[in-house]
C-alpha cells in the first residue's frame, strides 16, 4: 500500500506534473481519433482540433455499413474467447501451481514457445486445419484460434496467482471431502477473482482487436468481426479515413468500458502474477 509520507509542495507539484503529463500523452492519441472522426471526409488529416465538426460520419457508418452486425459478431467471439480462455487458463494454471506432474515443465515451456512463432506465418496452416474441421467462417474457428494466443499468457498469470493462495485452503477442502475439482471450483476460484479479471481483460482485448486471423478466416460482410470489417474501408488505391476513424472510436468504446470494469482488479491481479 501507498505509504503515508510528508512531501514538500515542490515535490507534490512535480509528482502531479509528471503524472498529468504522462496521462495527457496516454490519452491524446485516443482523443485524436475521436476528433478525426468528427472531421468531414477529405479533411481527416487536418491538424486543427475541430474542422467542420459533425457526427455525420457516425450516422453514415451505422446506416450504410454492416457495423452493427460486425459488432454483434465480435461481442459473441470476444465473449466466448474470454469465458472459455479464462476457464481453461485457470484450470491449467491451477494444475501447474498445485500438482507436480510429469509433463508440467514441458507444458510451461510450450506455452512460452507458442508466443514466439510469428503469427503471420501460421495463418496458412491454421487455415487449412480449420478447413478440414469445417470451422472456416464459423465463430468457433476464430474462438479456438484466439485461445491459442490468449491462453498461454493467461495460464502463466493464473499460475502465479494461485501460487499466492495458501495451500492450506486446498488442505481444508480435502478434509471436507471435496475432490480436487471441487476444491478448485468452490474454494480456490472465488479467491482468485482479481487474477481472473486480469486474464479476462487480456483475452477480451486480444479477441476484440485482432485483424490478421479474422480477415482471412471470415468471409462476407455478415460474418466479419469489427477489425475485419474495418478493412472494407481500405480499397485498392484509396482509403476511407473518415469511416475508419469513426469505426475506430466505436470499437474502442466497449474495450474501454470492459477495461474500466476490471481495472480495479488489474493491479491486484498483477501483484499475484508477479510472484513466481
Amino acid at each position, binding site marked *: 500500500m501507498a505509504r503515508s509520507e510528508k512531501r514538500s509542495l515542490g515535490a507534490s507539484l512535480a509528482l502531479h506534473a509528471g503524472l498529468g503529463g504522462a*496521462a495527457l500523452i496516454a490519452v491524446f492519441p485516443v482523443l485524436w481519433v475521436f476528433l478525426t472522426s468528427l472531421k468531414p471526409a477529405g479533411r481527416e488529416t487536418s491538424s486543427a482540433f475541430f474542422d467542420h465538426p459533425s457526427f455525420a460520419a457516425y450516422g453514415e457508418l451505422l446506416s450504410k455499413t454492416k457495423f452493427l452486425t460486425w459488432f454483434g459478431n465480435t461481442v459473441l467471439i470476444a465473449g466466448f474467447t474470454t469465458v472459455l480462455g479464462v476457464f481453461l487458463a485457470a484450470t491449467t494454471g491451477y494444475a501447474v501451481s498445485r500438482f507436480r506432474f*510429469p509433463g508440467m515443465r514441458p507444458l510451461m515451456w510450450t506455452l512460452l514457445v507458442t508466443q514466439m512463432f510469428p503469427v503471420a506465418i501460421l495463418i496458412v496452416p491454421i487455415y487449412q486445419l480449420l478447413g478440414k474441421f469445417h470451422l472456416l467462417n464459423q465463430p468457433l474457428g476464430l474462438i479456438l484460434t484466439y485461445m491459442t494466443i490468449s491462453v498461454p499468457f493467461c495460464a502463466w498469470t493464473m499460475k502465479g496467482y494461485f501460487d499466492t493462495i495458501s495451500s492450506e485452503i486446498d488442505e481444508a477442502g480435502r478434509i471436507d471431502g471435496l475432490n480436487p475439482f471441487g476444491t478448485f471450483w468452490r474454494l480456490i476460484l472465488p479467491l482468485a477473482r482479481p487474477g481472473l479479471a486480469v486474464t479476462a481483460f487480456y483475452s477480451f482485448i486480444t479477441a476484440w482487436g485482432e485483424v490478421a486471423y479474422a480477415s482471412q478466416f471470415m468471409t462476407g460482410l455478415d460474418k466479419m468481426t469489427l477489425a475485419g470489417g474495418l478493412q472494407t474501408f481500405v480499397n485498392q488505391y484509396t482509403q476511407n479515413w473518415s469511416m475508419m476513424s469513426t469505426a475506430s472510436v466505436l470499437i474502442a468504446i466497449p474495450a474501454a468500458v470492459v477495461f474500466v470494469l476490471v481495472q480495479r482488479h488489474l493491479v491486484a491481479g498483477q501483484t499475484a502474477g508477479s510472484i513466481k
Partner: protein
Amino acid sequence: MAVDTTTSQPTATAAGGDTPARGPRRTAGTPGRLRLALGKHWYAWTLVAPVVIVIAVLVGYPLVQGLYLSTTDANDKNSEKQIGDFLHIPASYKNVGLSNYTDILFGAHTNFWARLGWTVTWTVSCVAVSFVIGLTLAIMLNRKVRGRSVYRTLLILPWAVPAFVSTFSWRFIMNNDRGFLNHALQALGLPTFDWLNDPTMAQISVVMVNVWLAFPFVMVAVLGGLQSIPGELYEAAEMDGANAWQQFWNITLPALRPISSTVILLSTIWTFNMFPVIFLLTNGGPGDETQLLVTAAYQKAFTGLRQFGESSAWGVLILLILVVFAVVYRRSLRKQGEVW
C-alpha cells in the same frame, strides 16, 4: 505432446498434494509405471488436457509442419491442391535440405542480418524505454496523491484501446505536412521533424509509438509488485536511518525482481514479433529501415506467389532466436537464485 510419461518420474505426493512443483526430476522410467502415473496424476492431466489439445492441434501441428516445410521448396505452385470435389493436385515440392536457411543467412543480397540488427535494436530500445517509463510511473502512482485512480485509469488507456486504432491515430498525429505534432512544435517555435519519412526519424517514431502501447503493461505489473511489498520493511529501514534513495535501491528494486524478470521476458518476445505496429505505421519503410524480421519475412514470402518453404524457414529462425534468448535469460536468472 507435453505430457511425457516415460521419461519423467513422478515425485509429487498424492494428487491434490500441495507441494509447489519446482525443478526438474528426470530419471529413466519404466512402462509399468504408466498405470501408476495415470492413477496419481489424472487430476492434473485432466485439468491441463483441454489446453494441451487445443495448443497441440492449432499451434503444435502447424509448427511441426512449418519445420518440415522449411526444408522444402514449397510454394503456391507446387503445394497440394483440392480444386472443387474432384480435381486433386498432389504436392510436388521437393526436399532442399537446409538451402532455405543458407539462402536467408548467407545468400547474395540477403537482408537477414540488417533486419536482425534493427530488430534487436528495436526490441532492446522498446523494452528498455517502456520498462523505465512504466517503472517510474508505477512508483509515482504508488505515492499517496490526489486523483490517483483517475491518473491510473488514464495511464492504462493505451492498453485498453485496440492497437490498430491507436496506430492509425499516431499516423495522423505524425503526418509530416498536416500532423498535429509538427503543427504544435511549430506553434511553440520548435523545430519540426519529418517523423515517418526520414529513415532515422522513422525508426525513432516507431519505437515511440510502441513504447506508448507497451508501458501500461509494465506499469500495471510493477504497481502490483510495489503494493505487495510489506510497509514494515520501509518502516524498519527508516528507523535505521536509510534515506529515500537507499530504501529504493535496497528494498524496492530487489522486491521487484521477480515481476521484472517475467515482464521483461514477455515484453521481449512480444516486441520482437510486433507485426501490427510496423505494418500499419510505416509498412517497413522508408526503404526497409523499419522492417522487422517478422514483417520482412511476410513481405518477402507472402506477397504475390507465396513461398511457404522460405517463410517457414524465417519463422523457425525467429523462433530459434527467441528460444535461445529465453534459455540464456533463464540461466542468468537461475544463477541469481530465481526460478520460473
